[in-house]
């Protein structure tokens, strides 16, 4: 599979800090590549460098096989669209006028296709309303429409679900999948909603402290992530004791304090415990029962992307 983007040993240093410290990655054609990293891991800086907004200090990248040092990179860049950090739109213009402006910038011969683009992103009924009066979700969608002017085959989306409500997040997911499947657009995106990313991405790159610590495709990720069992229990403290005694790797997902009945007025916490691996459930449930902890439900689960990432980079909140 041909790579749309290859990055090799990319370093970006600012006066006081290094945002990228040797990033190496490749985005195959047709992929939805999810870039996962904490705040400050270097995701936006990487996007800025790839988009030509900032020069790399060291290393190089190639778009469609054209190295960044060559003049031809400008031609290669015409095949891409991007929304980096915030949607790049004129707030004093309507959605249609914003697209017309981008058409002029690209030198497209006519404004044909603008209506279709507005319909694609769900902004066809905004009329003369100024983009400054749009909701955050509408601005995001307009930013994507602007990036789609000129029919790019590579799209970079930096946190496209930022600030969106649940409905907006679902619509954004559907839009990304539609662009990838129906228009064969390769997408490189970052999102701090990892659950959401795991629903669309075909490839993942895990970025930590300016370095890609792992690249993996969705198939391999499915195979490599650990199995787990979620137990809904009546007493998480007791469950914790039992898990520790049994030498199991576990995680308390939630705990809710409730009062006991009758003479036993002590405080207990019911909640959910995630046990990694494939524990012997019969023995585990009996051991919990001996400690007075009831098991309400048992559910088999795959390890989440967030948990996988935290396990990979070693703790800290993932964003």
């Amino acid at each position, binding site marked *: 599979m041909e790579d749309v983007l290859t990055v090799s040993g990319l370093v970006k240093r*600012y006066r006081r800090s290094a945002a990228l410290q040797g990033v190496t990655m490749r985005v195959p054609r047709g992929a939805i590549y999810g870039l996962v990293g904490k705040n400050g891991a270097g995701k936006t800086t990487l996007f*800025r460098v790839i*988009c*030509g*907004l*900032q*020069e790399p200090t060291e290393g190089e990248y190639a778009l469609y096989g054209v190295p960044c040092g060559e003049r031809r990179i*400008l*031609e*290669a*860049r*015409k095949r*891409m*669209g*991007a929304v*980096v*950090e*915030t*949607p*790049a*739109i*004129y*707030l*004093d*213009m309507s959605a249609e*006028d914003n697209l*017309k*402006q*981008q058409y*002029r*910038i*690209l*030198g497209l011969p006519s404004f044909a296709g603008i209506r279709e683009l507005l319909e694609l992103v769900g902004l066809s009924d905004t009329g003369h309303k100024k983009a400054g009066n749009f909701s955050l979700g509408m601005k995001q969608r307009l930013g994507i429409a*602007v*990036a789609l002017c*000129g029919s790019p085959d590579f799209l970079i989306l930096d946190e496209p679900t930022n600030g969106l409500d649940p409905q907006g997040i679902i619509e954004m997911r559907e839009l990304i999948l539609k662009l990838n499947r129906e228009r064969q657009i390769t997408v490189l995106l970052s999102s701090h909603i990892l659950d959401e990313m795991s629903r669309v991405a075909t490839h993942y790159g895990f970025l930590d402290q300016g370095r890609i610590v792992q690249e993996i495709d969705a198939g391999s990720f499915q195979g490599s992530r650990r199995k787990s069992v979620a137990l809904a229990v009546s007493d998480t403290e007791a469950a914790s004791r039992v898990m520790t005694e049994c030498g199991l790797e576990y995680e308390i997902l939630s705990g809710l304090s409730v009062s006991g009945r009758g003479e036993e007025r002590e405080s207990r916490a019911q909640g959910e415990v995630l046990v990694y691996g494939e524990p012997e459930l019969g023995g585990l449930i009996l051991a919990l029962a001996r400690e007075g902890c009831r098991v309400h439900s048992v559910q088999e689960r795959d390890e989440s992307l967030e948990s996988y990432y935290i396990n990979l980079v070693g703790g800290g909140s993932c964003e």
Partner: protein
Amino acid sequence: MSNLLGAGFARLRRSKCLWFCLAFLIVWVIVAAGDRQMTQTTIGKDGEVQKQILYEDLEKVVFSFLPYLGFVVAIFTGIYMGAEYGEGTLRNKLIAGYGRGTVYLAEAVVCASAAAILCGGALAVGTPVLLLMGFKLSVSPGVFLGMAVSGVLSAAACSGIALLVVTQIQRGRNAMAAGILVFFLLVVLAAWLDNRLEEKEALPGGWMVTEEGEIVPVEAAPNPRYVADPLARTAMELLEEVLPVGQGIRISNRDLEHMERWPPLSLAVTFAATGAGALLFRKKDIR
């Protein structure tokens, strides 16, 4: 490049800021006109009251905004480019595959055109209005046209300087503030140069009243503020003429000596500022 210019001019046409600034300059000219016409009342021997309106020369009124045009240009450039940076639309041009130099040059042409529209528009509207009000030219139409061309080109030079300053600062308000500050310094420098060059060679003699109430004659004395050194004087004159604000002061004062060299000087300043700006922009990290 032509695509960027097309997009830039399309945006300029819709720019409320441009038309507001132009309206401000036209109002300035009209207010200045109202301020500089006086009604002289004379009473004849037969007691007849005659009223006569005295007008200042048209060119002195219509060019009165030129020394301060830099501020208006800095405000416009700050808002225009501030939006490009702040709303991130500058990124669209770079991502679309245009080189840094091309993007900067296109912005420079659009901003210079806006500055020319501001100056030219104010003159084009202000002059016929003043003629209708009864103001008259004291210079030939050819000289007036020369003054207008110099004014428009000095406005373009102001725009080159403003763009150079504004593009170094990516935050819109800070950029506009920096632009205004730079032009404030340029106005102060140009005014100081103009004052020094206008100093008389000698302080005139006269009469002085002593503490005792005695009136004594005072002899004429050399003026210590007069720039006598020919080299220093030439350098100061040239510096004042190089500064677009300095040209504005000279035009509004109708001090038109060396006017023929102002247009090429303005063009040189415009090209130098644009070249320097393009060089700095080439290495600038865009957010």
